[in-house]
């Protein structure tokens, strides 16, 4: 297994490849259609290359463990804005998630709704395309419109356009305090309406999730507030006033409990070690409940209703049941057999699919980078 330790070696490995390559970081996200091919690991490319807290920027090699990046940021009380999830327990994997893998999957957690996705914080990439050419785009500054934005293109391209070797991010200050305003017993429709109302307020909600199964037989809707302690307390009080009358409201302000709560939401904990396939559906928030109803199975809402996780019986193509809708559904957890048989990513309309295919051919003319992983 080629395990290059620098960009040059990645380039050699790709240029010299005689067949398909399966590109892996930490190997913690077996997402997409299973790929046959020789494994090319980015793990050897490791280390933080530059971290300037005063400039809110960090640059690291793609194989750097996510944990190392988060620890470095935490030491200066900063963090990645997009709250990348840890899918290991959901997907039943061990291994060490890498920052390159996070970018390749554009993995973004609950704070995505307020602070943007991974792609919004990503400000620079270096990568090796399917010809073996070393390329860069973007850089280490947060405002940069020089040339086309291939940074966005690389985020979420699952290693099909290039092997990432280095990534740069804009980061944000960490927070002094956090609290969670919880509303108990709402229907899905009422919960989405409440979350919309909260987002439509000036109180800077940084996460909004709804669990129909909830706790003790009652649904729970959670609104997260973060910031300086006084400000969090003030806004929690304001939200309670704003939402008064729709259901029982409690406020959790123990920092460890709030953190654990949102880590569980981020990592889709309610579906851990449960039978069935897991789908991730992105829709306009107000469409969330109807889509969840069409999907059947068990649902969890994040992003104010705009992200619906569903747990359904294994092996069926959910999209047949969903029909046409504005948004997309991705199969996140299923057996290899299921993922080999149906398209894991939502099919694109013909003219868009043609553009995607054109890009794939330009960046990987030999078709060797994770071929077929995106369907």
């Amino acid at each position, binding site marked *: 297994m080629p395990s290059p330790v620098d960009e040059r070696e990645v380039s050699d490995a790709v240029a010299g490849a005689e067949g398909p390559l399966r590109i892996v970081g930490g190997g913690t996200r077996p997402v997409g259609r299973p790929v046959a091919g020789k494994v090319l690991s980015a793990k050897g490319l490791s280390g933080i290359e530059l971290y300037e807290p005063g400039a809110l920027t960090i640059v690291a090699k793609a194989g750097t463990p996510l944990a190392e990046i988060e620890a470095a940021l935490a030491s200066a009380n900063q963090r990645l804005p997009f709250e990348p999830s840890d899918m290991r327990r959901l997907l039943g994997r061990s291994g060490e998630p890498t920052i390159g893998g996070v970018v390749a999957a554009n993995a973004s957690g609950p704070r995505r709704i307020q602070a943007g996705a991974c792609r919004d914080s990503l400000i620079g990439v270096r990568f090796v395309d399917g010809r073996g050419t070393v390329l860069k785009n973007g850089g280490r500054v947060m405002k940069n419109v020089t040339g086309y934005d291939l940074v966005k293109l690389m985020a979420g391209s699952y290693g099909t356009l290039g092997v990432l070797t280095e990534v740069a991010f804009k980061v944000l200050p960490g927070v002094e305090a956090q609290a969670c305003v919880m509303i108990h017993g709402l229907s899905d429709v009422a919960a989405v309406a409440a979350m919309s109302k909260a*987002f439509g307020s000036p109180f800077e909600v940084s996460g909004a999730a709804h669990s129909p199964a909830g706790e003790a037989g009652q649904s729970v809707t959670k609104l997260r507030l973060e910031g300086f302690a006084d400000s969090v307390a003030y806004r929690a009080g304001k939200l309670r006033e704003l939402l008064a009358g729709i259901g029982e409201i409690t406020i959790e302000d123990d920092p460890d409990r709030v953190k654990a709560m949102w880590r569980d939401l981020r990592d889709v904990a309610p579906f851990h070690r449960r039978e069935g396939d897991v789908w991730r559906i992105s829709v306009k928030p107000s469409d969330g409940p109807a889509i969840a109803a069409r999907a059947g199975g068990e649902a969890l809402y994040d992003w104010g209703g705009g992200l619906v996780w569903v747990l359904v019986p294994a092996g069926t193509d959910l999209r047949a049941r969903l029909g046409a809708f504005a948004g997309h559904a991705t199969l996140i957890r299923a057996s290899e057999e299921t993922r080999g048989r149906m398209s894991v990513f939502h099919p694109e309309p013909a003219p868009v699919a043609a553009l995607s295919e054109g890009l794939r051919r330009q960046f990987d003319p030999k078709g060797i980078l994770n071929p077929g992983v995106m369907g």
Partner: protein
Amino acid sequence: MQMPEPNSGVLSNKARIVARLRGVLAKDAVIDAPEETRAYECDALTAYRCPPLAAVLPASTEEVAAVLKICHEEGVPVVPRGAGTSLAGGALPTADSVILGVARMTEVLDTDYANRVIRVQTGRTNLSVTGAVEEEDFFYAPDPSSQLACAIAGNIAMNSGGAHCLKYGVTTNNLLGVTMVLMDGTVVELGGAHLDNAGYDLLGLVCGSEGQLGVVTEATLRILRKPEGARPVLIGYDSNEVAGQCVSDIIKAGVLPVAIEFMDRPCIRATEAFAHAGYPDCEALLIVEVEGSESEIDAQLGVITQIARKHDPVELRESRSAEESAKIWLGRKSAFGAMGQINDYMCLDGTIPVSELPYVLRRIGEMSKDYGLGVGNVFHAGDGNMHPLILFDANKSGDLEKCEAFGADILKLCVEVGGCLTGEHGVGIEKRDLMGTQFSDADMAAQMRVKDVFDPEWLLNPAKVFPLSASQAHRDAERDVAA
């Protein structure tokens, strides 16, 4: 500025091309009389002008598609145009091109407060998007200084920024979807009111592609609820180093202001003479603005002023009222106008890592002496996006050339210290020939391959972004491979 030879075939077919365009558009939507096409001969980079073959002003996505289909069949280059406020020559025509202006497409198509999105036609101006949602206390965050005039179309094409992007991001972070017409007339929908994409992030690729991949006709934009309030503090220092250190310390303290603006002495003096905002006469001036409720603002300004005091400011003025806020912002907002009073100016837009600020300002000062041209600096300090304004006299022969050479040296310096050529204005024709200082040939080729996919004949917005020699070589090579 070198521009490609106009296609003589297209020039000689003008009558037929115009007649075909008239066949698909309203009568007054096709402009081809030389005295009228003049209105489209340049954008806000007025040093370069060239009247187009014709200009068209379609009213819908369907009409845009019909126009592009005809131009595609006729092999006519098309230059998309919003409001023509580009400072990079992004909307500069070639003599054989049709200007496709979206100025008549200004409708709000859908306002959805529950989902916090608005759908508009892209000819709508930036400020009037906020205008459409203001009564519900919502706003559209990206706020370029040109927001009264510039169109969402141009904002998307240039990925425009604004003073408040430290907190809210730039256009690409607030754009959720577009309807776009490809050069051959195909209409594609990218994104929508939901987040992220099923496959590749084509929306992210299109934003900032300077009108070279498609014509954007409709857009879904994120709207946000206005904060309860906002207030700035003005801080003056006797050295750029200290001001730079103060910015870095504020950020490290965990405060995220919505804006951190920086002005240097030449700029402070010019604005003071012009706007009388009561700014102190010092080396460096910071305006830091925070948002929230009254008590939240007080708390944040408390942290900021405490840091600022540690650095021994010559002036520290915390706003206590709307009037005081307006006065603090007055000078900053009139900076460009004030500089324009002194002389003609060229506005640059490079970005640098904020840690390099003192060094870069010192080097710019030295270069200013060498070139014998004055320069003032006003910029977004939180994100390192500089706007050096070089003063010159357009009536003095050789001054423009000297100014351009000075500008090029500053941009090269930005790249050298780890930054980039343009933070928000785009490459256009202005920085086209400097692309090689930031990108290798391979880096540029990778971008040009994207162009090959979206617009294989390279008819959309020709001669921008890539050096002409590079794009020619690339296309010749692709042709050889194909043959």
